[in-house]
């Protein structure tokens, strides 16, 4: 039967449980997004309100889609934008090119650029697709700005860069659970996060129950 066994395998699958998680549950609410989802970027700020970006262009260098454009400038001595010597004078991300690989987030030495959970955004002009610094930098409450063409849902702007806090620097297990990042405006120094798969399942099960 050697050659024909495969047909039995595929036929049996017809009666097995599906492993796909639906995007919405019935006609109900959208499913909660994984905490480590790669969405639209934000530029973070320190607790004192200064920007984290130092204009080093590492993100632009590492970007495989070449969608990031950065130009640094010296901080004005009387009103510094960032704590260091230089700051990101121009910062642009072209979302027509971005593939949300998060290499920029990994490359950033100051955790300036991280990703939110937002992916439901669409624009009708190319100009809208190119996010400038004005749109990327977090507001005074430390949360990403909500632009008119973006469909934000509860909690998507809270979990920025969760994966960075769940894994350890350079992938070394020694650092797991140890805080190795700076504080953020509106949040302070965030706690380390555990792996997410387990929690996601719980959250979804609760939601499904509520819906039925």
């Amino acid at each position, binding site marked *: 039967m050697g050659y024909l066994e495969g*047909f039995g395998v595929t*036929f049996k*699958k*017809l009666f097995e449980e599906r*492993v*796909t998680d639906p995007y919405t549950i019935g006609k109900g609410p959208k499913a909660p997004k994984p905490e480590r989802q790669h969405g639209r970027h934000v530029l973070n700020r320190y607790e004192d309100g200064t920007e984290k970006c130092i204009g080093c262009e590492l993100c632009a260098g590492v970007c495989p889609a070449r969608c990031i454009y950065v130009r640094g400038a010296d901080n004005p001595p009387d009103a510094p934008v960032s704590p260091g010597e230089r700051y990101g004078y121009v910062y642009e991300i072209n979302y027509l090119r971005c593939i949300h690989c998060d290499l920029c987030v990994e490359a950033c030495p100051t955790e300036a650029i991280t990703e939110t959970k937002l992916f439901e955004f669409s624009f009708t002009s190319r100009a809208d697709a190119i996010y400038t610094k004005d749109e990327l930098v977090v507001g005074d409450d430390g949360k990403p700005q909500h632009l008119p063409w973006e469909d934000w849902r509860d909690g998507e702007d809270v979990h920025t860069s969760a994966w960075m806090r769940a894994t350890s620097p350079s992938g070394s297990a020694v650092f797991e659970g140890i805080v190795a990042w700076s504080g953020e405006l509106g949040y302070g120094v965030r706690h380390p996060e555990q792996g997410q798969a387990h929690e996601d399942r719980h959250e979804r099960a609760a939601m499904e129950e509520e819906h039925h």
Partner: protein
Amino acid sequence: MGGDPLFSNGVDLAVVLIVIVKVVVTFVFLLIATMLMVWFERKLIGDMQNRIGPNRAGPWGIMQTLADGIKLFFKEHFMPERAHSAVFVLAPFLSFVPAFLLFAIVPVTGNFADGGNGTVEIFGYTTYVQLADPPIGILFALAMSSVAVYGVMLAGWSSGSKYPLLGSVRASAQMCSYEAAMGLAVVGVVLVTGTLETTQMVLVQAGPGPFGWVPNWGIILTAVIPFVIFVIAGTAELNRPPFDLVEAEQELVGGFNTEYSSIRFALFFLAEFMNTITMSAIFVTLFLGGPAGPAPIGPAWVWGLVWFFLKLFVFLFMFVWFRATLPRFRYDQLMHLGWRVLIPLALGWLLLLATGHIASDQGWPLGIAIPIALVVMAAASGLIRVASRRALEARLAELEPGGVVL
């Protein structure tokens, strides 16, 4: 062997109307069936891979194909700069039109139960429930599937782009290779039913079979082997998995239709699935007795429809099952299977069938006729082997020592 009984009393308005209605119904039926087939394939293959499949548009996602079609209509028509524009525009229709025409010769239903002659009565006119019943019958199907090769070949050639060209070169070689095996399998059915006309074939198959309870279907009359050959060759002819080298995404981007967009692409896509349906219908007609089957209560043509679609469904399911299960053939495996396995097998089996046929006609004992045929076959294949060996040796001898030997 009269043609369509439509013409026995001359052609008047009602006859013309019946023909027009048949054309429209066939057209609409095929379009809707294709739409449902695309959905069915995506849904079923999703199930076979532990996925959900389309579930957004309409109940169970059944309108998904319609949504895709509407989307494709509004997409940009793109033509590469170096494309041959006239052929580029023509090619999708060369694929699409034969797919429609192929279905014209399939008897969909009719009164085949209890000695019926396969006709139905509409408004006092007697007619077959099929678009056309040409005397060349099944040859028309082979002809149309050959024309469909041009659609694929010209699409790749006229694109002015290398991957489509590679895809179309593969397609033409593959389809030409398997047409031979397919034709030989069909000859087997023609031999045992004694006719080329599809309606007559179904009539023969509707008759009483061996032992009184076994159906007199082509698959049994030809002893299964031609059926297996026809299914394999038919799958290759359709360019469906595991013979989808034409559209091998991993190697050829999208295959012959890479440069096509918008509704022209949709035509190729629809033609492929429509061909799947029509080819399944041909399988049913040739080997499973078409709409023939018992009709316990009610009009026989309703039962004909039921049987026809049940049998059709078996093959549609089979095609999707193939796709879900089998990995794609390598090109040399494809050619090996076509030329070295299927064609000799089909030829040999045809010889045996013919021997059996003549032996029973002439009253010769089968126990002697079949072994003689086997001996003849063995001798012939031995001679061919010797001949090809000699030819190879001669060619090798011509090469100087150290020359390129393949």
